[in-house]
Each structure stands twice: as C-alpha cells, then as structure tokens.
C-alpha cells in the first residue's frame, strides 16, 4: 500500500496502476484500495499544497495517477457505488477554462466521491438537469473568469426550481475565491480543491 501511495505522490501513473492491480490480485477490494491507498495519498498531498509550496505540475501528475487507478476499477472513471456520495461539478456557461475543475475532479475522485463532470462552458439548465438525475450531496462550480459570476448566482434558484433546495452549492477558482458566499449566492467558497474536502466532510452523507 505504501508503494501505491508513493507512486501517486510521485505522479507515476504506470507504477500506481501496477501497484493497485497487485493489491487487488492479492485480495484487497477496490474500495479498500481507494480508502487506504488513494485517499491517504490525497491527504499527504493536501498538507504539501500550502500556498508557499504549491506546484500545479505535481498536483496534475498525482491527479492523473489517481484517475488511472480509479479507471482500473471503474472504467468510467467515477466511483459509481461511492459510500461518500455524489458531487456534480461544472465550469459554467461563459467559462471555457477547466483546469481548476479537472483538479477538483481528481481530488474528489481520489477521496472516494462519485464525481459527475458536466464539463466546461456548461449551460445552467444542463447542470440543473444533471443534479436532478444524480441527487448529489453537493454541486461544485469552478470559475476562472469573473464574468461567470452572474450565472453562478443563479445556480441555487435553478436547483430549487427542480426541488433540490437541500443540495449544497460551493464555488472556487481564480475568479470566484475572492468572493463571499453571500456575493455568489452559494453555501461555501473554497480556496482550494482540498478546502472543498473539508466542506464536504462536514456535510456528512447526502441524499442518495
């Protein structure tokens, strides 16, 4: 298991997949491998990723290793039968940058959440439809340009219109993290993808 953790932290996808495959062959369930291996690696990455020590390359490489390991067990790349619940994420209409969203996806998947990715430049209705279909624990919005703010403000309303008042909404990304939850009409504004984990773990299990 330690070798899997090291391989993920080194960003060595091939090694991570090979170690995960070995662990699985020796009788460990995919769930156990995710919880004890991948999640542990994510926690280690979290403590390393302070502002002073942030390195996008390192996070992207580790994220890729996580996604490859996930795909080994769930070919769709999402932890379908997640015990932790589902999170629907998107970069909303007007924003075609999705690097931040993809990092969030990797981090959440690595922590065992079932992540439903609505992509970039995503229309509000498409996001709300996905939320209605998935009944997620939360909806996450990543924004890199400030012009997306008016759309972000409408998300809660669009969810409420589908009877999803209790689905929490969080936002993050370069254009949104300066704002307060009140300004964006969301429940939480995250400084980083790891900040989202702390928010979600505070929510407990979602409606499934």
């Amino acid at each position: 298991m330690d070798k899997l953790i090291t391989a993920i932290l080194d960003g060595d996808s091939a090694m991570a997949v090979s170690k995960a495959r070995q662990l699985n062959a020796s009788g460990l369930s995919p769930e156990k491998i995710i919880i004890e291996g991948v999640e542990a690696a994510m926690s280690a990455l979290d403590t390393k990723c302070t502002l002073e020590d942030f390195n996008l390359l390192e996070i992207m490489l580790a994220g890729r290793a996580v996604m490859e390991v996930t795909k080994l067990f769930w070919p769709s790349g999402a932890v379908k039968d997640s015990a932790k619940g589902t999170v629907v994420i998107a970069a909303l209409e007007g924003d075609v940058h999705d690097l931040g969203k993809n990092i969030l996806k990797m981090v959440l998947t690595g922590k065992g959440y079932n992540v439903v990715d609505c992509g970039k430049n995503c229309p509000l209705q498409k996001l709300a439809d996905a939320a209605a279909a998935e009944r997620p624990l939360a909806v996450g919005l990543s924004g890199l340009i400030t012009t997306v703010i008016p759309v972000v403000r409408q998300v809660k309303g669009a969810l409420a219109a589908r009877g999803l008042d209790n689905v929490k909404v969080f936002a993050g990304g370069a254009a949104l993290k300066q704002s307060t939850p009140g300004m964006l009409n969301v429940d939480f504004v995250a400084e980083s993808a790891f900040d989202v984990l702390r928010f979600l773990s505070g929510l407990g299990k979602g409606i499934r």
Partner: protein
Amino acid sequence: MPELTVITGGTERKITFPGGLPLRKILEGAGLLVRSGCTGNGACGLCLVKVEKGNDGNLTKNERLLLSASQINEHIRMACQMAPQGDLSIRIIDEGAKSAWRELPQESGRPITAKSGQGTGTASPGKTFGLAVDLGTTHISFSVWDMAQGKRVFGRAGLNPQSRFGSDIITRLTAASESPEKARIMGRLPLEAINGALADGCAENRMHPADIRHVRFVGNTPMLALLTCSSPAALLRPDQWTRPFDCAAADAPVFAAALGIHQQASVKAVLPFAGFVGSDLLAGVLATGLMSAPGSLLMDFGTNSEIALWDGTTLWVTSAAGGPAFEGYGIRCGMPAGPGAIFRASRRLDGGGVDFHVTGGVRARGICGSGLVDLIASLCVTGELAANGKFTGGITSYPVQEKDPAICLYKPDVDMFQRAKAATGAGVRILLEMAGINAGRLNRVCICGDFGRNLNVANAQRIGLLPDVMPGKVEICGNTALAGCEDVLLSLRKAQELEQIRKRASIVNLSRAPRFEDFFLDGLYLRPIPDGNP
C-alpha cells in the same frame, strides 16, 4: 473626519475621509494612483501600501492568500482590502501606470526609410503625413510618417491609460460592460493619450498635427472594440471568440477631432481576424513575411500569447491565455520591462550568486520576463531547480539581491511561470499538430513583441519556451504589429497583402483541442520541447 497621511515619493499629503471606505477608493478620490491589476476586489495583490502609523484593522482572507509572511510583518496591506476608521499614515509602495511617453526605439517597426513610398491618399498641396498606431492592452506605440517620401518623422511608445480599469482584457471588458458611458470613457482614453504625445512630437519635429491625413490602427480585438465602441461586452461571450468581429464603426471626424489631426483624415482600424485574434497578429504576419516559407512560426508573448504557423497552404492562428508572468506580473519580485528591471541574469558557476543586468543602469527593483527566463534556466543548469519546477536541496526560494529591495525568486513564482509557458507551449504544439509539422523541422521562428527583445534564445529553448531549432532559425523581430501597421498605412499593395493573409488564416480554439491538457501538462516541465508528440 479622520485624516489620512500619504507618503509618496518623498512628499506627504493629508486627506480627510469618511470612515469605512476602502483605502483604494480614498486614494483614487484624492487623485493618488496605486498600481493595480483588478477592479479592487482583492484578486491581483498589487495595490500594496505600508502602514506607518495608526490602526489598520485586521487582514482579510484575500490578504492572507496573497501577502507573504515578511510583508505581513512589515505592515504591508492591500489598499482595496482595508477600510480605515481612524487617523492613519501610509506609504504607497508602487504608484499606478503613468502614461509617460518615450521615444520609440530606432529598431522598432519597419525600416525608417521605406524603399518606395507610395501613399494611400491622393497627393495634395503641402506635405501629407500618416499615423500608424499599435494599440496594445498594456502599451501603445505609434509612428508618424511623411507619406510621399516614405520616411519616419518620429515615433513614441507609452502605456495604455485604460489599465486603470484593469490590467487584463477580461477585467477591462467587464468594466466596459457596466455602462455605455464607462465604455465611451475607456474608448477615449488612448486617443487622449496619443493626442498629447502627438502634439509634443509634432512640435519637436516642426510639423503640424493637422497635416496628418491618414491613420491606421492595429490591435487586439478587445482594444479595437473599446476604441470604436463596437459592443465590446459581446467579446466576453466564448461564441464570439472565433468569429470575425466588426470594429469598423469608427466615426472618422470624431476620431480626427480627438486626435487633433486633419478634420477629414481617413481614420481606419485594420479589422481584427476574430474575437481573440486581433489585427496586430495579422500585421505581424505581414511585417515578418511569415508566409514566404512553409514551416514558419510566429510567437508574440504576453498575457494572451498570439501564435501563427504557416504550413504552405494554411495560416493557423490562435491565442493562448497563460497569465501575465511574461510581463512580470503575478511574480512576487516581478515588474514590467523598464528602468530598474533585471532583464538578463546568469547564475555564477563558481557558486556565488547571480550576475545580472538592469535596464537604465539604475539599482534593480525587480525582474522582468526575459530576466525570469534567464534566472530559471540557469538555476535548472546548476540543478538548483528541478525540471518539475521545485527547488532542490531543501531550499524554497532563491535570493537574487539581498536588500534595498530584496529580490528573491519563490516557488509560487516558478509555478506561475511554468503555467504561462505551458499555455503557450500547448498552443504551439496544437498548431504544429494541425499543420503536421514536427517542432524540430521548423524553418523560421519569429519572436515578436517587447518580451522577445532581450530574450536569451538558448535559455528559452533550454526550458521549453521556444521550439528546439537551430539558433540561426530564431529571429527576434521587435514590434511587428506596428511595422505591419506602417506597411498598411504606406502601401496599398501591403494593405491588399494583409487581406490575402486574412483569407488564408484559420483559427484554432485551444479550449476545444482534445490534446490541450496533455500538451499543457508536458509544457509545465522546465525542459526542451520534444520534437514529436508526447
């Protein structure tokens, strides 16, 4: 009312203010500018002030994110984030952009004497002059030409005063979309700035602005849209980015009046190619003669780096948004090229420190884009910086100058640079892929714009900023946007050639390219661009 004491450039000013107002607003209200890159929402971290005396309240979340521990210790705050309630004494760390015009360098633009001057206008009594303008997000350059003789009379370069509405395009377009009045003011600002510099230059050169009868503008699309008030806010919509955008609605007499030139002057903006590829790039392709040989690449580095690749049949064009690192912004010790900027640096191989050159022969205040390339490349050579952008040997930063002021390269700065490089690198590689050309087989690599002027090509190649071609194939071309604009101003044939370039161009939207993320990830590494594909 409480009183604010502002120390700036050795003088003190006292201002009374209502408590609870953000400091940046108080300063702006008193006509005092603070350097800034955003609208005052705490995003850019540039509006730094040092609190000398008084209660400045608590740090905000944004300040905790953007200020370093040593800055916090020195009572440095962000002016937009603090709202003083009582008497306070502060020092402004860096004043905002002043539109100080300087002489355009001789080597800027096309050769100062054109071989065959052939004015676009009909001959009229007395001399006819023309004005070519490259309207950039940060800089404005212009030159005045004797149309009949094809000779440059003078040229000037200065800062775009619009930057007080935001240093990047998105912030500025957002500001313009707030009200038509604001958009109109923003459109007028560059004209007023040019008017002043034009009047000075004309007086020095014993000519009259009213003799200027022809004006051509080139620029990126948002700048031209703001200039001509052609619904700039529409450019915020991604669906507009790859479409032609109409900036033709220039009201020539109004422009002529604003510039103080001949009332019936012909004033035209060279139409941009699309929402995110401006006429500055088309002008650059014209001026470099990029389409004379297949396998020619043009790169203009900036916050949005523009890239063009000619493969013999198609001119592939794109724009890569990599952030402002190449312009020295977003880097803790960074600054734009200019007096006090370290523009060249090399790590001493005997172990002791860094040798560097400073623009203007003054003491170093910071490091600009080309200096950053040198510093990062030489730290990679010594192994103090690994290819993944992390310092080795347990250090977290590298000091360049001990003090007055301390200049130090921090890890997040390297990270910012890696991102900017990765975005342009991904742009280049996607265009190469579209054209089916290997990086190593390029015949020409033309580096355009200010950033290229002091670029050390070998260092840039070492860290993968430029494709790894023979050094002789890399050309440092200077301000090709202005040179192309001058070509269009002076020669009907060149103006027609530019329209031919437009017909051959095909825009590539990087955000739709399936392999963007692969190339981006690969481009984050500080190592040469591989010849083939990852």
